[in-house]
């Protein structure tokens, strides 16, 4: 991922997004009204941050099922401390996300446990802590903070500036630093990377910590736009974030993928929600449609590799797919 690469999956992502935008333009041109677009971006921002966090973890070959509950935990913390502590409440919230990521990463790396199971357990822990801090939805955010998240930088919403800056930093960081190369290396082949002098434990701890920080930023945006905390809001974000990463074309096996693809994946999911809303389709169908889109998008790529088209390639495919 040294530079944004134009892969076959890129076509699927771009085409799906263009198609959705065209449909939206036809059924409701008002969608592109300036105010509506800003609301759209603010609503999409928390998922975007969680999906970026999920991307860096999936690049290491891991997965994090606890990011959603962590988003909920930091949301609850922020809604409790921002009003009494002011600016230092901001740091407390960010720090709690970073620390949570650090703990998860340390358990995975030092305990030599599988990420999927550790993060499954951690999602239970973060949900419990969130409910402990705030049993009922409540809390609040101070005016300066709400203005900060929903405010403008000239004519450009602050949130958009923030998202773009984070995405560029991540992309630059991953394509130009030794750490970024190490992440891709252990994602592609952990043992090989280790023999080459990379410390998988160190890289993993750093990556889960980074993901915790990114998720905390998402939680802060959520707190600003909702102006309250809700201990049960988080879990739904976990699998949606994985869906966004995968829709963007990043493989779950790790070592390969890109920040920009994930942004494309998030956009697909968010535009789809808008489309269902404006078409007046009953919200009953929302889950069904999202699930089908995911299956179709995942199926389109591999269909051309079906064994009936390349019968002689089957075994070699199985080997190269890593099993």
């Amino acid at each position, binding site marked *: 991922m040294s530079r944004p690469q134009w892969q076959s999956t890129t076509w699927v992502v771009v085409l799906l997004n263009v198609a959705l935008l065209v449909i939206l333009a036809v059924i409701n041109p008002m969608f592109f009204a300036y105010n509506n677009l800003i609301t759209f971006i603010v609503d999409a921002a928390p998922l975007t941050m969680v999906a970026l966090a999920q991307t860096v973890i999936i690049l290491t070959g891991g997965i994090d099922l606890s990011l959603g509950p962590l988003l909920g935990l930091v949301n609850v913390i922020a809604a409790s401390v921002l009003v009494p502590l002011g600016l230092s409440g901001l740091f407390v919230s960010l720090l709690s996300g970073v620390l949570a990521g650090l703990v998860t990463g340390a358990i995975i790396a030092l305990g030599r*446990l599988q990420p999927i199971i550790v993060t499954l357990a951690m999602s239970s822990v973060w949900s419990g802590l969130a409910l402990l801090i705030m049993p009922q939805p409540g809390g609040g955010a101070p005016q300066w903070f709400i203005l900060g998240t929903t405010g403008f930088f000239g004519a450009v919403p602050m949130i958009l500036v923030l998202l773009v800056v984070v995405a560029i930093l991540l992309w630059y960081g991953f394509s130009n630093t030794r750490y970024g190369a190490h992440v891709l290396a252990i994602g592609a082949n952990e043992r090989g990377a280790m023999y080459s002098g990379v410390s998988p434990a160190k890289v993993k701890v750093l990556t889960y910590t980074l993901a915790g920080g990114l998720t905390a930023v998402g939680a802060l945006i959520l707190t600003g736009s909702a102006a309250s905390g809700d201990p049960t809001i988080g879990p739904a974000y976990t699998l949606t974030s994985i869906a966004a990463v995968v829709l963007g074309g990043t493989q779950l096996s790790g070592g390969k993928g890109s920040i920009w693809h994930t942004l494309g994946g998030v956009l697909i999911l968010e535009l789809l929600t808008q489309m269902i809303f404006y078409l007046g389709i009953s919200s009953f169908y929302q889950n*069904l449609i999202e699930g089908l889109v995911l299956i179709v998008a995942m199926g389109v790529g591999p269909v051309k590799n079906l064994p009936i088209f390349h019968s002689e390639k089957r075994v070699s495919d199985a080997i190269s797919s890593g099993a």
Partner: protein
Amino acid sequence: MRYPLGLSRSRFRAWATRPTVMVYGAMLALFFLFAIVIPGYGSLNNVMNIVRLSAFLGIVAGGQTLVIISGGIDLSVGAIMSFADVIVAELSLLHMSPGIAILVTVGAGIGMGLINGLAVVFLRIPPLIMTFAVGFVIDGLALIITAGSPGGTVPALLTSLGSGSIGVVPIILVPWILYGLVIYLVMHRMVFGRYLYAIGQNRSVARMAGTPYNSVTVGVYVLSGLSATLAGLLLAGFSGVAYLGIGTPYTLEAVAAVVIGGSSILGGSGNYLGTVAGTIIFTMIQGGMTVLNISQAGRYLTEGIVIILLLLAYGRSKKLV
């Protein structure tokens, strides 16, 4: 010094550190802990109650055990459970006889498992994503079919299976034991089971050695769909009323029960006996916390911490060097 079971010291150590043995140790330790803290916890009635409540998770986790040993994962089981729970009652509104309604529901569950398996094998969609998306679709289908408010009556057969007792023994033990027997036969007495472990150990090698990778993998997801349907049907019988989303929590609990039971999430090792203990541990934590009047927050925290501790005790992978 003599070691239990007439084993030598090293043999005893090897036996006692097997995941299956350790998870049963953890289960007994937890039981005695609760029995000391909670009066009446050790009574026969309560033990039977724990067994009854474990059966639903125990059956759905059986299918999950097969899937995980084969190297996959099935995140659609909760949705399939909810679907079975809701649909079997909904069909009574169409004046369908209870027997036919149960058969139709089982058929639907098998079909859902088949879709999972075919997509994983032939479209090569990663199981995590495929089964997650299928879960979404099934939840959506249940919502559309019931128009958001499920109704109808649960067949009497299921009610007696799910909530009936003979003396103190819950009837649900009968289907659970039969189910366990079938799973045992499939895993340890049929060639299918050997293929299952082979594919979980190393898919490419198993394929090149001539195991029928495609049909075994599809079969595993079908069995998982079937298990989830059975669990959903029994749950309908137990709860008596159908409601949407009743199965949702079972998805991740089933995965956790399998892994606590000593199966590797990477596939290739594990057994159903361990899963059963993992299931009972989960049910005991939930029941015990309710009796001790500990909030939902405390319950979540305890569950998460117990999983981590058990994994640290016996679920660690080997050092790379």
